[in-house]
């Protein structure tokens, strides 16, 4: 899967599952504020990541994810990590 395909897949579930306004999703926008995420939403973020990419994110993984760009990078890195 190319990086662009991964980004499109992420944007797809953010719109479908989190009902995000696609026009507000820009690389430098804040993930938490744009999606209005609370602690329960992060649990559901873990679920959609697992459903779409087959790995389970850990709570501490989100500490350094501030922007959508950080989020894309994190997923791309995990997807491309050797098993």
């Amino acid at each position: 899967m190319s990086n662009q395909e991964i980004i499109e897949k992420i944007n797809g579930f953010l719109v479908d599952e989190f009902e995000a306004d696609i026009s507000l999703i820009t690389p430098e926008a804040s993930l938490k504020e744009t999606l209005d995420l609370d602690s329960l939403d992060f649990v559901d973020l873990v679920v959609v990541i697992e459903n779409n990419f087959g790995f389970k994110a850990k709570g501490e993984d989100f500490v350094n994810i501030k922007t959508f760009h950080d989020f894309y990078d994190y997923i791309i890195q995990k997807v491309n990590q050797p098993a």
Partner: protein
Amino acid sequence: MNRVVITGIGVYSCIGQNVDEVRDSLFKGKSGIGFEAIRKEMGFRSALTGILPVPNLKDKLHRRFRNSMPEEAEYAFLATDEALKMAKIDDAFLDNNIVGILYGNDSTARAVIEGVDVMRQKKDTTLMGSGSIFQSMNSTITMNLSTIFRLKGINFTVSGACASGSHSIGMGYFLIKHGMQETVICGGGQEVNPYSMGAFDGISAFSVRENEPTKASRPFDKNRDGLVPSGGAATVILESYENAVKRGAPILGEVIGYGFSSNGGHISQPSVEGSARSLKMSLKDAAISVKDVDYINAHATSTPIGDMFEARAIHEVFGDAKCPVTSTKSMTGHECWMAGASEIVYSLLMMQNSFVAPNINFETPDEDSAKLNIVSKTIEKNIDVFLSNSFGFGGTNSSLIVKKI
């Protein structure tokens, strides 16, 4: 003591998805029963069920609310939204007054099963998602509705088997009567999915008249062979009379009597003595005689034994008073945890529109039902006072009496 009145009703059921549709179905004697093929694949003896769509609330509620709601909470939301509008209770009222909620519910089977399936398959609890816990608790309806409507009063679920909805209204009535609450949202909700009904089917409680779905639910008829499961939700807004008058709310009726009892006997078999005790207690609480009751909405579910016991109990209490009796379950099927509330809504609609809805499929009386005045075709009749029975597993009984104002 406060007088307790009903200022709003709402309903989402297999005979209509709002009060107007349901009123028309009741008048026409329309059945909401159908055949759901998937149940046969799942090993059901009977694939008969009330047929109603699961609502899509995407345009009505934020994702975060919906995430915590199983189908029964969705039904209850729609019924409650309708009831609040009818009662002229808006956001400002909810924000500035102490409004409570007591709602009947006694299962969350689909949410529990689907959550546990994920845990078993993935060996991980986080992957069950954040909504699973709130969907799986038996109090899911009250926890969801109290959050959505920002309620500040009494807030818990009443679990009394198939009398849950009735007891919720009874308890709301009690709290308002004694001055502890001014306004309480009462009701009952019932999931309709096959998971919630498999074990009930397993004890051979359901009708197997699968070739004639609309004729399968036939309470009091000699040839009945079991109940048909169904569901949805119904809401009744209770308020003190004083409060309702003060704010100019519509008054649909007054709750004047609540009776209850426990059989203290078999887990599934009813009892004449226990049922009769509930009936007598409601009449005593209402301070009326049997001659004052214009209509009885029976609990009768279409099981051979249950209907027999109720017929005997009604006859014991009412004697030869010949009050019209019908079971609306002949049209709706057995709405279980919802039934005690929906049947108050159905009876109120009859009271408002001066008719008695038929006990459809009542063709041949048996020895016990022959002693009652069971109405099989719609009749036009003024109803000033009605009584509604609800009985449940474990021998829990509830009887409510409502009067026209």
